[in-house]
């Protein structure tokens, strides 16, 4: 074995191995760290885009229902009941999420259930006498519907 101190070769095998191993380990850790950060960033961006698509879908359906109700009522008729199915996926970008309809600010809000949650809000518009009932749904396996209630003249998301 070569002497550690008095050797003039300036190359020690064990130190060489330790150094390369340490540098490799460091590089791998840095790569893994940036990998996860990249994934989370992409996740946020994709979640945002997906929420935009679904929120606009719900907003369109609400407008359709509203237009329908308005056209029936202006002929002197009445809508007894109306149900539209809203197809929402269980997870978006791998995370669970909630959908909230807010009556006071007239918005549809998608929020992801992660520690760093992303949120997307979009307004809806109603022209007739109907109103939207405020509520949050936690998206689950069962079907979700936009239901119009004739007695309270409200549209509920269930």
């Amino acid at each position, binding site marked *: 074995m070569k002497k550690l101190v008095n050797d003039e*070769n300036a*190359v020690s095998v064990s130190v*060489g191995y330790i*150094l*390369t191993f340490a*540098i*490799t380990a460091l*590089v*791998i850790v840095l*790569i893994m760290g*940036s*990998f996860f950060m*990249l*994934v989370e960033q*992409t*996740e946020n961006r*994709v979640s945002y*885009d*997906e929420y935009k*698509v*679904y929120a606009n*879908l719900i907003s369109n*359906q609400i407008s*359709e229902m509203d*237009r*329908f109700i308005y*056209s*029936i009522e*202006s*002929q*002197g*008729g*009445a*809508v*007894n*009941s*109306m*149900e*539209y*199915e809203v*197809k929402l*996926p269980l997870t*978006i*970008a791998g995370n669970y999420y909630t959908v909230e309809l807010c009556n006071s600010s007239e918005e549809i809000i998608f929020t992801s259930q992660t520690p760093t949650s992303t949120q997307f809000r979009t307004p809806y518009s109603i022209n007739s006498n109907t109103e939207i009932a405020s509520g949050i749904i936690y998206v689950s396996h069962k079907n979700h519907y936009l239901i119009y209630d004739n007695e309270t003249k409200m549209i509920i998301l269930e």
Partner: protein
Amino acid sequence: MQIFDEDGQLLLAAAFSIAILVLVSTVLLNSIIFTSNIAAESGSDTMIYKNNNLIQATTNAYQNAYEHDIGLNQTYLSDFESNLKRMYAQEGYLISTRQHDIFTPYFTETGMPGGAGDWIVVKNVKTVKNMVFEIESFDGTDFEVKALDSNNNSIWSISYSYDGSFELDNVDESFDNVDEIGNSTIRLSNGNDPSVHNIVIRNGSQVTGYYLIEGTLDNSVEYHEQRGKMINVTFNINSARHSTSTTIPISLPFNYSNNEA
């Protein structure tokens, strides 16, 4: 002793190339993993148009049925409905209709008590060939049918008053024939007024009855505005993802035998 100092460089170069490989594969995989989410359900919904088509077709059927039989030929209507069901079933819709009682409408825009009581019946009228108004019940407000010219001045007017008779203003001068039948029906024909006018109703929301007005418009198109009795019909449309149930009042044609006392 030869210094083998290329060994370390080889290891470092290998580590860097592995790192770059991991990075590139991450970026590629990201797009594959996340684009699978973006397929969302899209496409416009045709429920409104289907419902409106259904209402229109059924309205025509009921009006035809009523013209032949004021009791509404049920065989004709059920044949019509079963054909309609077949047609809509091919597009994935289950429909059903149900009729309610025939009733006498109010003189409002929609015929229902909540409709507008002051409204324009016909616009841009050039001539009135035939006009019949029949009052069924009267609840005490000043009910008026009048013709307004472009400055909103009244050319002629007919009002129905508390004591159950018609008050005519300039009507005998504007029409060749004026017939009052009983206390509740008035028939006029051959209006000779040269100016273009609108025929309007005022305070129609507490009076029930039937009317018919026909003649020619300003652009030489003929018009036939009429409303006899009305009937409420409930429409149910169900598809795989939507279902609606609406009730619409359908107006039936004016029937001269309504006023045979």
